[in-house]
């Protein structure tokens, strides 16, 4: 495993090296950002909402080919600060919607904040609670930098009624030595007179997939601020076009 990770580390180092000469340019950029409060990067959020677009490959300079997921991340609109149990979070909205596709409660809530109609609303942790928030402020992908580690949550692809090999990684039965034609069955499910019943939680076939799923430790390869696109190394749960939540990693 560590061998696999090295190219990305190298990549991250490269990115750092690249960043150093760019610093003066970034400072130059930060001035107009301050002038225009519409795209405020002073809001520090735990994550952002986006759409999974699909997968492709990235060819590195050293010949490595890296599987890459492309996510259209944001721009999200800041809506409202919420405080609960000493934790401050920020409600953000993503994706423009037709007003007639929203219900009255959502529309009136957005009208009260003076924000355009929005399809998805979700809360994310606000890491700097003291910051002032004006509803409608855009939050963009630049909260992520190449080399960052993320956890990505989405609704996984539904697999329907699945057997025990796919659903619980059972090994199945032998294919030789006179096994009857049930090589994909799980085998015995209980004991004898004790306990005289099947234990609760016995792994059996059933509905699989289609639930909330998180993949941890996915690295950011590249960020494209103009197109609001983020490049992630590896696969992300969910089908193309599904809504994903990209968070900074929980693991340090």
């Amino acid at each position: 495993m560590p061998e696999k990770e090295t190219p990305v580390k190298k990549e991250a180092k490269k990115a750092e090296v690249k960043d150093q000469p760019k610093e003066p340019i970034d400072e130059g950029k930060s001035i107009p950002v301050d002038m225009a409060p519409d795209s405020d990067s002073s809001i520090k959020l735990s994550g952002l909402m986006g759409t999974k677009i699909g997968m492709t490959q990235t060819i590195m300079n050293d010949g490595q080919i890296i599987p890459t997921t492309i996510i259209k991340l944001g721009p999200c609109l800041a809506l409202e600060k919420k405080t609960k149990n000493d934790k401050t979070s920020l409600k953000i909205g993503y994706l423009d919607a037709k007003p007639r596709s929203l219900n009255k409660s959502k529309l009136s809530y957005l009208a009260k904040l003076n924000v355009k109609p929005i399809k998805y609303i979700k809360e994310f942790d606000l890491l700097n609670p003291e910051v002032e928030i004006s509803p409608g402020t855009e939050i963009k992908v630049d909260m992520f930098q190449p080399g960052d580690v993320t956890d990505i949550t989405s609704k996984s692809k539904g697999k329907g009624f699945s057997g025990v090999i796919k659903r619980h990684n059972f090994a199945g039965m032998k294919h030789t030595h006179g096994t009857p034609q049930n090589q994909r069955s799980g085998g015995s499910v209980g004991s004898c007179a004790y306990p005289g019943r099947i234990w609760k939680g016995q792994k059996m076939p059933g509905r699989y997939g289609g639930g909330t799923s998180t993949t941890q430790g996915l690295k950011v390869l590249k960020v494209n601020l103009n197109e609001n696109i983020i490049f992630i190394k590896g696969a992300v749960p969910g089908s193309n076009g599904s809504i994903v939540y990209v968070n900074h990693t929980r693991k340090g």
Partner: protein
Amino acid sequence: MNIIDKIEQESLKEVPLFKAGDTVSVHYKIKEGEKERIQIFEGVVIARSGSSIRETLTVRKISHGIGTERIFPLHSKQIAKIEIKKRGRIRRAKLYYMRGLSKKASRIKESTK
């Protein structure tokens, strides 16, 4: 054009026109410690598969009497150059049948075009 096509388009290299049956030499960069040198692999292209950034070419040659094949990612940055030595006249896109042929039988006629 959708977003993925657009992104892939950016990292495509300019590749000379060639197809299966052509004899090419692939100049491939190899890193040895600090040094970088170029290795040349010359043989017949028996297949081009995949599309866009995923496209690969399979090159086959007989080296010391043993058939050797190598698959290169066409748009890899390790490929310095693809040189076309000969244009072959063939009638199918994949020449996997060449694997079963003797050296004499696997000769390809040169295209007159």
